[in-house]
């Protein structure tokens, strides 16, 4: 039986211009306009945001926990990507 509440949408809120959109939760809605209006009513009743994104949950592609090792491993052994890897002479001052 189809879910009588419509599909699931993920909701992202931007607190104010210049800040990133942050995932805040999800809700059911039948279409995108309803998803946007319901998100406003559900997630921004107290000035939590000035902009909203909604996206169908089924459109989200995500990594899987059991891939953590192989998927993110390439970043672990490259300490030269961090500024602290490099030695700068004391006399140079702040860099």
């Amino acid at each position: 039986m189809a879910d009588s509440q419509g599909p699931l949408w993920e909701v992202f809120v931007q607190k104010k211009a210049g800040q990133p959109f942050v995932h805040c939760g999800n809700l059911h809605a039948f279409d995108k306009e309803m998803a946007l209006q319901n998100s406003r009513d559900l997630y921004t009743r107290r000035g939590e945001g000035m902009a909203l994104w909604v996206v169908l949950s089924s459109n989200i592609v995500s990594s899987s926990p059991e891939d953590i090792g192989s998927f993110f491993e390439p970043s672990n052994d490259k300490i030269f990507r961090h500024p602290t890897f490099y030695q700068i002479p004391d006399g140079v001052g702040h860099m």
Partner: protein
Amino acid sequence: MSIILVKRALNPYICCAGMKARLNMSVNVEELFESKLAKNDIIEPKDWMPENYRKHLIRQISQHAHSEIVGMLPEGNWITRAPSLRAKLVLLAKVQDEGGHGLYLYTAAESLGTSRDEMLDALHTGKAKYSSIFNYPTLTWADIGAIGWLVDGAAIMNQVMLQRTSYGPYARAMVRICKEESFHQRQGYEVMTKLSFGTPEQKEMAQDALNRWWYPTLMMFGPPDAESPNSDNAIKWRIKRETNDQLRQRFVNQTIPQIEYLGLTCPDKSLKWNEAKKGYDFSEPDWAEFKNVIHGNGPCNKERLVSRNKSHKDGEWVRAAASEFARKQNESTAA
């Protein structure tokens, strides 16, 4: 690699059976789960988890969601009769919040593999439980004050603990809920303050509400630890971090000075400060009554279920129309 990832991601929430089988071959998933709990790490929807942990959470979170939704009914009873426009606006906002809390919790439970329909069906057929407190009637305006102050106060005590529960979506829902609940408790205490410092009749009304809500509120924390069937696992899995009795004691300690400030009397005649434990000794609620109400025989159980079923049924044409509208929109976009 990327194709496999996309396939697995079809449902962003649930691990499929094949993945579990594959996992079992490589690492001991159960040990991994236990070690995460031991480190206070959070379990997320796609992580492997024992079936009983999943079941326990579905039961607890859906009951919590049902309690929020059914909790709208006793308070909604007073929206049309609120004593001022201010009081009416506040109560509307509060009842709307409760509806929102229900929605946060339902989707948190859905991330564990149950559906909204299944949960609503369980509620509407009387199979699912919700907090016994909402089966008591709201007879006077003072009851709205008592609910906000005592019932929401007790709920907050439980929910503050649950902000650190081991399941990520539940914890995140609790953080949002706790932010909103503090308004609820304060508005309730404001109502009690106005009545307690008003006319003698108003004060009497406040005392009567306290008398009727005190013990049902103490029941909200659940049966005593020694008789609580689900507590052991809940603590072991860090779903709960404190026991029913610990939370109940803290609630009593916190609430008695608030009763005294109002000039009201706690209905528990044997309540006494215990210096050794730095807390109050208090009488247990009538646990036979608790069981009776949980099993459907409270003053308002039938009324609550009838209201919920009616409201769901009344909304049926709206859902059907919205669904059909969405289908047509999609068709015209595709064409």
